[in-house]
């Protein structure tokens, strides 16, 4: 933290899977690069007291191989497992994926949908913030120069609760989300939705939560397929209302609006199915 404060051009890194390509692409080189991987809190996975604590510098490959985490948060593990390639998975981390502040980050929508908190340390001590508050725009975070994230605190899933993440890319891997969607669903014993969160990636300057989703989905029995029920159209409208996408080399704004609706439906269906399976 002292190093970071004393060096205004310094950067922290964990896997450096974004930092190095950015330097190669012409971004100014940091005057100092500080590796977080040896700080104990950044490397542990614990489940106690109703919370999972997941280190911010744990490689995605470790997360996807973790049976407990995969059972508790299949959507988060799906998101982490989609970052980059197999080789990148050996280094890329949740903390880096969040702090790179890309609207297309695959692990961020599930973290937001799960209500995860980021534990942040810096010169002013330790604080926590909702993951949704960390990123404030493309490549911009609310962290100050001395701060970094040590770990994420995620509420342990209650019975009947699960999550899912899906992204659209034109290929099968080695790509960046054109659109991403995460859903967390809690169902009662009858399979009726009690609580829902839907979060979108790559359709706005930051990841966005579809706040109307819970109102639309609560009380519904979510089917195995996103069929013709009217509430899907309502969800679609709510999704579109949250989208503020751009036209770029990866897709058009219109395309992103359409596919965001499709992915929102698909992840809600998957999360609800998984939630029922926990009962």
């Amino acid at each position: 933290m002292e190093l970071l404060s004393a060096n205004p051009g310094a950067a922290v890194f964990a896997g450096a899977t974004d930092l190095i390509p950015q330097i190669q692409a012409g971004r100014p080189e940091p005057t100092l690069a500080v590796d977080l991987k040896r700080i104990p809190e950044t490397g542990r996975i614990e489940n106690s007291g109703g919370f999972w604590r997941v280190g911010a510098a744990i490689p995605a490959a470790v997360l996807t191989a973790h049976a407990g985490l995969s059972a508790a948060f299949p959507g988060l593990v799906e998101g982490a497992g989609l970052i980059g390639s197999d080789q990148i998975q050996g280094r890329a981390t949740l903390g880096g994926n969040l702090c790179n502040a890309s609207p297309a980050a695959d692990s961020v929508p599930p973290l937001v949908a799960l209500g995860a908190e980021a534990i942040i340390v810096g010169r002013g001590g330790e604080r926590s913030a909702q993951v949704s508050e960390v990123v404030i725009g493309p490549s911009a975070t609310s962290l100050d120069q001395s701060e970094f994230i040590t770990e994420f605190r995620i509420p342990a899933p209650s019975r009947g609760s699960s999550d899912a993440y899906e992204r659209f890319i034109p290929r099968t891997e080695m790509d960046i989300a054109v659109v991403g969607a995460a859903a967390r669903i809690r169902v009662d014993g009858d399979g009726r939705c009690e609580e829902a969160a839907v979060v979108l990636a790559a359709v706005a300057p930051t990841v966005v939560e579809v706040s109307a989703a819970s109102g639309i989905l609560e009380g519904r029995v979510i089917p195995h397929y996103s069929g013709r029920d009217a509430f899907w159209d309502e969800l679609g409208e709510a999704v579109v209302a949250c989208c503020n996408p751009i036209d770029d080399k990866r897709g058009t704004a219109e395309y992103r609006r359409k596919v965001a609706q499709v992915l929102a439906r698909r992840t809600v269906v998957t999360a609800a199915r998984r939630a029922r399976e926990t009962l």
Partner: protein
Amino acid sequence: MTTTRTGYKWVGTRPVRHDGLDKVTGRARFGADYATAGMLHGVVLRSPHVHARILSIDLTEAAAMPGVKAIITGADLPDIPDETGTGSEGGINFRDLSRNILARDKVLYEGHPVAAVAAVTLRAAQRAAEAIEVDYEILPAVLSLEEAMEDDAPVLHDDLFTLGLDSPPDRPSNISRRRVIARGDLDAGWEEADVVVEREYTTKAVHQGYIEPHAVVAETGEDGRSTLWCSSQGHFAMRTYTTKVLGWEPGDMKVIPAEIGGGFGGKTTIYLEPLAALLSRRAGRAVKMVMTRSEVFRATGPTSGSVMRIKMGARRDGKLVAATAWMAYEAGAFPGSPIGPGVMTVLACYDIPNVLIEGYDVVLNKPKVAAYRAPGAPMAAFAAESVVDELAEELGIDPIELRLRNAVTEGVRAVYGPKYRKIGFVETLEEARDHPHYSAPLGPWQGRGVASGYWFNFGGETTATVSINEDGTAVVMSGCPDIGGTRAALAQMAAEELGIDVHRIEPVVADTHSIGYNDMTGGSRVAFAVGIAVVDASRQLIEDMCSRAALIWDVPREEVEWVDGRAQSVTGASAPLTLEELASGAGATGGPLSATVTVNPRGAGAGFSTQICDVEVDPDTGLVTVLRYTVVQDAGRAIHPDYVEGQMQGGAVQGIGWALNEEYIFDRNGVMENPGFLDYRMPVASDLPMIDTVIVEVPNPDHPYGVRGVGETGIIPPMAAVANAVYAATGKRMQDLPMSPVRVLEALSGD
């Protein structure tokens, strides 16, 4: 799967390739693997503008920076007359080549080299390049074929007057050449047609996508003699081109071929070589230059984007009676798109009596195109084979059956002139029709498409040497870089002739000072042309060895025959002499055993391929997934079926990428937005099913084993095969490539 005929010991078998161990262990040395002590690093300063006049270049600050040893600009290269040389994939204009390597008065695309710097470290060279001050006057840019061909378009070259017009133009334009092919009576043809389909198609510029970036190490001595280590498809051409651009003597330059990490036509020209050689001469030290991936995309050969209008008419019985094709290809900043092969191949699969084909070569502010696997043919086939599919539907005739009713056969005159010799197009169609794939059931949102393609293939100037070592092993030496398994294929042909084990033969790709001239590895020519030379050389050696056995036995030559790697007495009077025995005693019978053959063979057998594609389309996202894909291709004779299949599969995969997602994306100012493999979306392995292959063997009578070129034909049918499959799945004709999810969903939303 293969239908290779047996009866040969080595030809048609699948031995482990001779260069395989080096490649899988990392011992093989590619372009960027070379280094010398005290070597400098060179970088290129590139234009940030797509079209601008260079007002001044100030090197003062850069030259004074620490570690900088040499800087060159366009002013350091000699002026070269406007003349065209030949290469295996079309002519090359050395004046344009020189101006593409270093801009003179104008820059013509983003990434156009303006200066090159050599310094003691890469970082020092990069910093010096950044310190070069270039003053530009921005000029209006021409970024599309439509804009470039307009009467009042900004003109890239003041001295470019369209060739091939009925009357010579009185002012310059961006159209460098018009090519026309015509025969028959079109009016009569349309009169006879019961069904006519006319459509317009567009394709985008796509890159060859070789994994290995361009790389060179050059060392030029005080005496002006130089050595280049570089990765290319032909080191003799690298020497010719480089010395031509520098005004040096070819004999003063030795080029040592590195192993090549992909070329696909894109490594048939030069970019860095003269820069490194000249920097080395100025600095008095070796200079290494390696492109970044971004430089490869922005400044080395994609192939042309295109606009094509095709009209075809057929009688009710399916006979094609008339066709017209209007085609315009992007050449990039200098003339030389593959419009020539485009107009020659577009209708070459079919026997159509009345035809008019018109092609335009158009310059615009994009990187100069380079050869790409069957240059000019795949986009043409996308258009023509899509129209054929529509005709088949309108006529109610199965698309393969329609092709069979019109397929060219031996003796038919090709639309561009010559008569076809023995060809296997009909055989590829019949194999495709009878393949289980063609009748397999399909599910909802799934569809099947078929398309065919033609490529002429090439012979070319060739030297090969076969030498027998004293232990009876052999060296087969050629001067053509191995980009498709040709070392193994050449060794197999020599093994078949000599009657020895293929692994007792070492195939070598020799440098420019170690073997006679060879044209590039291009035009699918190596197994054909070098194969002929290797077979001839092997036969000369056998003749020589039989004569020596006759000498030893003191019998007439006629009483000796060569069987299974041994000289045998026809009369049985003497015990056979093995290759080992003849080799170890060669000193006493006339000296070492070696034969060199030079050829420039005609008769490169034409290649045809028919391909079947199944896709599934996701109606919610527009995603097209290829479910099953079969390539049927006439190889003449597959010397090493693994590598023939590999070529067929590789061509299909590149074509599928071209069909679905690959494209150069430019911003409003003409700056490429996706110069990397993340956003230049080539297929990854998990995107595709195993590509099934069927090798058809209709032997080429002009090759001792019947070889036809196989490297290129496979990339021609895929775009139309995929488009026809997408139509079958969705009812939408996709006329613009790529068929990206955005485009497909747009088409589906059109209802």
